[in-house]
């Protein structure tokens, strides 16, 4: 079976995000970039499926040369091949990213295509599902459990207050939620091996974005919070404030 996993290169979640002088992009200086956390679950799942069914895992990323670091991580975790679809990560939207990925995925026609459920930069959770639609494939998003039996896939996905079971057939697209598995740490041997593995580079047609960012701004900061007290006796005043001032209970 052929497994494809699409990975993105994003600011570490601990990073403080500052806005650039243009007011439309973030200031990348001083930010550590990592593999999108949800993509780690996607890579791990593909590796486990390959261990079970045999085949090949290809990691794909759309971006500039800095994205190679994330592809190296995927190689160090154990994927067989890594492909960088070269593009300048400016003026993107989920549609233009999905189009470019879909073009390449169509070429290699994998049985299983995995994404993280969202990238923690733009938080759209749209690309994986858009790719599925562009390729005319079924999709299951926010997957917490996956089992393949004779071409039928039994999946569990998270919903409000519970889970639902979804049935589909391969080829299909899935997006991984935390909890799907426990991603492996690259071993030293894996890291060394990844350094010598080539990263294939391709340049594809670029698609225009349909979404335009007009402005980035900070959420309004709270200020002037009130310390009500320093022990359990403060709850009387707290409940009074929540009831009479905030009017939320």
């Amino acid at each position, binding site marked *: 079976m052929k497994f494809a996993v699409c990975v993105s290169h994003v600011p570490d*979640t*601990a990073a*403080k995000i500052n806005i650039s002088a243009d007011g439309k992009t*973030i200031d990348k200086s001083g930010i550590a970039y990592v593999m999108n956390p949800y993509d780690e679950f996607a890579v791990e799942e593909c590796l486990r499926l390959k261990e079970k069914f045999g085949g090949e895992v290809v990691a794909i990323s759309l971006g500039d040369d800095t994205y190679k670091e994330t592809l190296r991580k995927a190689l160090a975790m154990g994927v067989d091949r890594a492909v960088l679809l070269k593009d300048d990560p400016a003026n993107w*939207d*989920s*549609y233009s990213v*999905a189009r470019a990925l879909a073009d390449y995925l169509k070429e290699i026609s994998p049985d299983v295509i995995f994404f993280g459920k969202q990238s*923690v*930069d*733009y*938080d*759209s*959770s*749209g*690309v994986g*599902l*858009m790719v599925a639609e562009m390729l005319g494939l*079924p*999709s*299951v998003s*926010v997957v917490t459990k996956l089992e393949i039996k004779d071409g039928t896939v039994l999946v569990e*996905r998270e*919903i*409000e*207050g*519970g*889970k*639902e079971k*979804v*049935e589909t*057939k391969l080829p299909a697209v899935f997006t991984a939620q*935390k*909890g799907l598995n426990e991603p492996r740490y690259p071993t030293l041997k894996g890291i060394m091996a990844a350094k010598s593995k080539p990263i294939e580079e391709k340049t594809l047609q670029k698609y225009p*974005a*349909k*979404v*335009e*960012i*007009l402005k980035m*701004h900070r*959420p309004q*900061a*709270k200020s002037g*919070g*009130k*310390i009500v*007290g*320093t*022990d*359990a006796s*403060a*709850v009387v005043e*707290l*409940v009074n404030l*929540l*009831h009479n001032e*905030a009017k*939320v*209970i």
Partner: protein
Amino acid sequence: MKILAFAEQNEGKLKKPAFEVVCTARNLADKLKGEAVALLIGNNVQQLGNELAKYGAHKVVVVQNPKLEKYSPTAYPKIVAEVAKSIGASVVLVSATSHGKDCAPRVAVKLNAGFGSDCISFSIEDGTIVATRPVYAGKVLTNIKINSDVKVFTIRPNVFPANIYDSNSSNVEIFEIPLTDSDFSARVTEVMQIAGKLDVSEADIVVTGGRGMKGPENFKMLEELAETLGGAVGASRAVVDAGWRPHSEQVGQTGKTISPSLYIAVGVSGAIQHLAGMSSSKYIVAINKDKDAPIFQVADYGIVGDALEIIPALTKEVKKLLGK
């Protein structure tokens, strides 16, 4: 100009996000001098149409079929897109719920539309919708504009109002959308929901515990407080990673980003990833024994002290107020 609002129902019931999405469509329609059309999908759901009209829908379109009893990641987007095309909708609004987030990106592709997800406000500038949406889990907000003819937005639950309009005339119309087996190439076969359990993303009040709760057994206290308040229990990443609580309860950048009316953070220090996920809550209460914890910087009210002593007292006081 037509604005289509996909109003989700689950097992024949409409939840708050459905009213919010219809009401938001109506507000936009009023500003753009257009028409708000609500869409209901399911099995035997037409009787819910009148309720949607109350929340501002000029017209309700119903697509019903026994096969649509449960959600399908393939059939539902097809129906939304087909209805949007057939009424000539230029804007499609969907709730950013688990089904809505699954459905909307596919709808956008089918309509060759730009997609703006998880929006928290809309304004009209030069006759065009400008949406505000959080990025980097809310550390930054963006104002976006969609340049395609058709625009698809999802809206975050619990943020937009659900006001009742004086609408006596409900105009409910049943649409037939032909569906084949291949439209159900992915379909939900079973729903496993804990009865009465409110999700952190739906709750108006969330009580979140962190490492300061000292152990998983102490979350019983938070469950009791949440139940008394009619809210849900949330968890910090630290306690989820420690296995004390399930990931579905995690609030923050690799969990859920939420905006309840009241957020009570108990024994949560307030790492940047956590603050990103909850600082847009309307009111925030922090209870932590470390007076320098970052959570106090976003809190409206704080108590510096031991959570395990304060929570039982707080629950008692709330019960007294509510006469429980």
